[in-house]
Each structure stands twice: as C-alpha cells, then as structure tokens.
C-alpha cells in the first residue's frame, strides 16, 4: 500500500473529498468552514500555510493542515497543526506519519523549529498518534470557562 500513497499539496478539486473525509463520524456538515480553509490555505499559495492531501491511486484518503503563527500567546513563530484526518479504511498504514513528517519538513523550511497542536482530551486515538510522532505536553496550558 505504501507505494501507492502520495502526499501532495491540496488543490481546489480536493474540496469535496476533504469534506467527505471530515464528515466521517461527524453529525454536522462544515461546508462553509472548509471553503474558507481552502481560500486561506490552498489559494493563498504561501509557504507558511500548508494543506497536504494523502492520495492513494489518486484518491484522497487523508489530509493535514498547519501554518506558521507568530506571537500568539506570546510565542515566537512556531508551526501549528490544527487538522489531521485519515480515512478509517486505510488507518494503521503509516499515512498519518507520512503526512506529519511532510508537514514538519514544510514548516521547518518556512523557518520554525517547533510544532504544536491541540487535541480534545477524549480523542485518545489522535492524542496517541501525536505522542507516537514524538510530541509531548508543551509549555502552554489551555484554559476554558463556560460563559453562557
């Protein structure tokens, strides 16, 4: 299977496939959200915004998105990975690792030496994946409060 997987920059034609991959397991559609993401990360053509799609035989089976952000929360520029999905049918084949390695390489090229992410505490699978990629608890603690 590995031979057939390619990691490519997302193109406009991937929009529907990305929405379908994201939809798996979700109750609500986020079509407007994804159109916005494509505008910002695909059409901009900037090297500090990275949207990669894993394709198997030309069919999208996963995607990863990240970008360089500077001085948010007082942090010097660093890479943020904020979306990662692999189709359940092809999981445990190393596709997530390939995409993560590639986005880290791209973010490094863009000039940062740290990559961060944030994951729901109940998303054990995703947390385990990022741990497996060598990520550890970082220097920033997320806080929240219900205000309604």
């Amino acid at each position: 299977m590995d031979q057939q997987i390619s990691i490519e920059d997302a193109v406009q034609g991937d929009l529907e496939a990305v929405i379908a991959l994201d939809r798996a397991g979700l109750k609500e559609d986020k079509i407007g959200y994804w159109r916005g993401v494509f505008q910002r990360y695909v059409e901009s053509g900037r090297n500090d915004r990275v949207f990669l799609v894993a394709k198997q035989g030309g069919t999208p089976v996963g995607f990863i998105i990240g970008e360089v952000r500077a001085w948010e929360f007082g942090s010097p520029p660093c890479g943020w990975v904020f979306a990662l999905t692999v189709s359940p049918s092809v999981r445990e084949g190393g596709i997530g690792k390939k995409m993560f390695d590639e986005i880290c390489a791209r973010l490094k090229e863009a000039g940062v030496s740290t990559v961060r992410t944030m994951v729901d505490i109940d998303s054990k699978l995703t947390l385990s994946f990022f741990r497996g990629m060598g990520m550890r608890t970082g220097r920033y603690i997320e806080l929240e409060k219900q205000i309604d």
Partner: protein
Amino acid sequence: MKLNKASLFGLISVLELASEPERQLSTADIADKYGISSHHLAKVMRNLVHEGVVQAMRGVGGGYRFAGNVNRTTLLDIIKLFETMESDLDMPHWNKAADPVVEELHAITNEIDTVTRAILDTITLATALKNTRLRAELASQKEAPKS
C-alpha cells in the same frame, strides 16, 4: 504524581519484556537489572500474568514473556492494574455542603487527575519504547569519543 511501587515495577517489567517480545526473563533478571526487590516483583508478575499482559514460561530457562500488543497497551492500562490513579484528599468525614474549600480542592485535584490520566492513557508501550531507544541512542552518541 507518585506511582506506587507495584505500578512502577509493573511498568518496568512490561517495558523490559516488550522491548524484545521473543525474549524470556525471570524476575531475578529484571530485579537485578533495575536494583529492585525480587520478592515484591514476583507479586507484580503474578498480577501481570493473571491479567494476560505477560505469559509465564515453564521449564528450564523459563521466565516471563510479553503477551500483549505494544500498539494497543498504554501506560495507564498497566498502572490501573495496581492503583486507581485518583487523588485522595483524605477527608473521610467531609460534609459537602459545609466545606466549599474542600470542594474547591477536590475540583482542583480532579483537574490534575484528568490531565494525568489523559497523558498516561495516550502513551502506548510502542511510543514509550521508541522514546527509550532514542534516549539510549542520544546517550551513546554523547559518550562516544570524538575522532
């Protein structure tokens, strides 16, 4: 966070055995390597066998062998066999309505416990072993004489 001895010995044993799943080790082998009590370790191993995490091999050269799945077993899976991982404020006569201070302290310890559990529950044995190997490689690179 302080793990109790049984949890710590359990993690050490499981990681040691899982690092080479085909290898068999006795309690004495593991106890000697880590300088821990062989007697205490024997009790831990019995528990691990009972839970199916390790397998006891009989006969000459017998010992223990890892029987689980390194990609599926997390550190918390092992720790849970030996302790509850819940902070205890040791207030047996706590009156909820009358003790907002204690209630707040409970809320704080619950936050800590939630994060601790999430960390331990998402580190698989495979990840811990991979990081262990990386540490060993780094250490040997530091020790290697510069040519």
